[in-house]
């Protein structure tokens, strides 16, 4: 099965690297760490998937599982988003960013002990956090619901894991710093800053009044833009030219979009507070910074669509490219929706509706997760030095994810706009507004079921591949010990 000819080239370990032996040594040094990080990411992805189905179902069938406080919607929904963000998102981002950094810097991981300890701490922290939310210790701050007894552990674990990306960066043999490395390098510094400030100013020693709302908007949009989007952009800048075997078009603009995104993006988040009880200048600055996102939208478009143009047929042969192409479309839509939502007239309608939920899912699932899926299809066979166990499962995963995201985001966006228009019209009773969203919420639940089918296919394929790889290891170890005892010395 390992030599299945129908497998697309990147699903098998044979690569056309310029330093094949070195690349193999780097991949081997990352094996244990990446298997642990990816494995735990997938377990969290499935947990978050099940929680998502239940909490989405509760929105159109409120009586579903409402008899017990542990399964009430107000707890399951934050448990879902935290399991997805900190369980799936971070573990996956650690895995992808470490691999990208090691390969691009041409540095092997010196040892995986500390990193594995960090991974254990991280997953224990997320378990405590998500469990804490379900048991009623939630802080009720969106994306920071995990109680204070879990979060310091996360920061310690983060340091133990992320430091290794910097170690391979500094110790590597490459003297070039490529766009992917800027993004990973920056994201690794930005996240602990954002997270510790948010924890201190919101949870441990809360600031007064709606300054909290400003800090929160600053944190949560930057968590998306400066962490998740940075890691995903790093992966796109790596895989697009690599798989298409051509340079990124208009690469000279990439550094401009990097700095532009960082400078204005980090101010743009507060546009979500338009119309809120915060100083007017904060809202205005947020809206202005959001408009500035048009520039990186344009440059990233030139870089990515420009590289892909004329080579769309390559998508047929490469799963990784297909996932990334979907993600690029999602990214364009995320930025467009962001700019549009900063307009007062639009914000008055879309604010507080399912439209904002659609934006979040488009960013976290349609963009970030799709990039990570595509990257892992390339990374895992190289790190394990074995081909993916099943090609049909890859197809199931791709189509379920693409259709699921399209249906989820489409339903929430259209339902949200309709909800916003009706909310703005006081002649429509509130209960009728809720009733009118029901079909869209039902569609969103169906979308989550489709997404989870894809996730199951991915997880099954991953653990199957690991099983096969370890079976190979056991076999070769036996051969080594029985046939060539002297070689084992």
């Amino acid at each position, binding site marked *: 099965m390992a030599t299945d000819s129908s497998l697309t080239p990147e699903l098998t370990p044979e690569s056309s690297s310029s330093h094949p032996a070195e690349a193999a040594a780097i991949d081997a040094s990352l094996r244990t760490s990446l298997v642990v990080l990816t494995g735990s990411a997938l377990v969290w992805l499935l947990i978050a998937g099940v929680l998502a189905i239940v909490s989405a179902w509760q929105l159109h069938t409120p009586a579903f599982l409402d008899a017990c406080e542990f399964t009430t919607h107000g707890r399951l929904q934050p448990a879902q988003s935290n399991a997805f963000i900190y369980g799936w998102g971070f573990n996956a981002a650690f895995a992808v960013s470490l691999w990208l950094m090691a390969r691009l810097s041409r540095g092997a991981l010196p040892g995986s002990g500390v990193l594995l300890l960090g991974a254990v701490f991280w997953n224990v922290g997320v378990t405590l956090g998500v469990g804490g939310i379900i048991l009623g210790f939630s802080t009720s701050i969106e994306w920071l619901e995990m109680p204070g007894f879990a979060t310091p552990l996360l920061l310690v674990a983060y340091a133990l894991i992320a430091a290794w990306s910097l170690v391979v960066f500094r110790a590597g043999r490459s003297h070039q710093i490529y766009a992917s490395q800027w993004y990973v390098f920056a994201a690794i510094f930005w996240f602990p800053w954002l997270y510790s400030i948010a924890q201190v100013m919101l949870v441990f020693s809360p600031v007064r009044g709606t300054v909290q709302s400003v800090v929160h908007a600053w944190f949560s949009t930057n968590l998306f833009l400066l962490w998740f989007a940075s890691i995903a952009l790093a992966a796109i800048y790596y895989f697009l030219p690599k798989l298409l075997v051509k340079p990124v078009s208009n690469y000279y603009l990439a550094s401009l979009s990097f700095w532009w995104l960082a400078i204005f993006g980090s101010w743009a988040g507060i546009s979500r507070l338009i119309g809120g009880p915060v100083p007017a200048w904060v809202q205005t600055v947020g809206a202005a910074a959001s408009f500035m996102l048009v520039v990186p939208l344009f440059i990233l478009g030139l870089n990515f669509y420009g590289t892909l143009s004329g080579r769309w047929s390559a998508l047929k042969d490469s799963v990784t490219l297909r996932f990334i192409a979907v993600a690029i479309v999602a990214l364009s839509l995320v930025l467009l929706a962001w700019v549009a939502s900063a307009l007062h007239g639009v914000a008055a309608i879309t604010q507080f509706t399912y439209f904002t939920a659609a934006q979040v899912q488009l960013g976290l699932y349609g963009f970030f997760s799709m990039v990570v899926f595509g990257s892992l299809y390339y990374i895992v066979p190289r790190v394990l030095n074995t081909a993916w166990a099943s090609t049909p499962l890859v197809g199931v995963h791709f189509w379920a994810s693409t259709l699921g995201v399209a249906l989820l985001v489409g339903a929430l966006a259209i339902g949200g706009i309709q909800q916003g228009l009706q*909310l703005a019209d*006081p002649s429509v009773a509130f209960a009728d507004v809720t009733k009118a969203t029901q079909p869209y919420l039902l569609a969103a639940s169906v979308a989550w079921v489709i997404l989870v089918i894809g996730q199951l296919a991915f997880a099954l394929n991953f653990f199957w591949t690991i099983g096969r790889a370890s079976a190979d290891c056991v076999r070769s170890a036996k051969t080594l010990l029985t046939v060539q005892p002297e070689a084992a010395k």
Partner: protein
Amino acid sequence: MNRAPILFLGVFCVLAFSFVGLVLTNQLTYGAFTTHVDEDEGKAFPQQLPGIAAQGKLVYQDLGCVTCHTQQVRREGFGSDIGEKSRGWGERQSVARDYLREERVLLGSQRTGPDLRNFAARKTPAGADFTADWLYSYLYDPKLVVADSSMPRYAFLFKTQKIVGQPSPKALTLSEAYAPEAGYEIVPTARGEALVAYLLSLKDTYAYPETKNVYTPPAKPEGTVEEKKEGTQ
């Protein structure tokens, strides 16, 4: 961009810029905002929550009510929260000072359910004031009092107990289909009582200086006269 130290410096400065500009500036300017002392009434507004309501807020937080309910009334003309033709969710827009005493500000981001900032000052669908009894029934099973409600039940905030002596004054009055067996009554737990006390404390009716004389957009888009309108007192 081939020098790691320069890259690091840039990366540091970029986030420092937004941290100083947004977080620190706001903290230093209005983070020290004070309460408004009303000399006529001899009180400082906003007022501290009564103890049981403060406990109720913790219940509100641990049940994640903020997932579906916002707590901010937007200004007239922005959405339809307040004003002449509106949902009447408040008497005035929410201002920063309203949240001064709150250790956790729960603005919220979804209006799956209605805004609750000024909940206790509003009227029930039948036009009466909200009472603890109404809320107990609503939380126990929303459909008991609002037939088309889409809120889940919070029956776990109630307990069935044997009637000893006089029935409890807080016991739910339920129709036969819902009523417990004879000799028993359904009463709110301590958490249920605290949550209801909190919900009944949600009232932003005091008019601060900054909520008077606020700009109100003209009624018609073609309107040529823009006038300043007196806010609600």
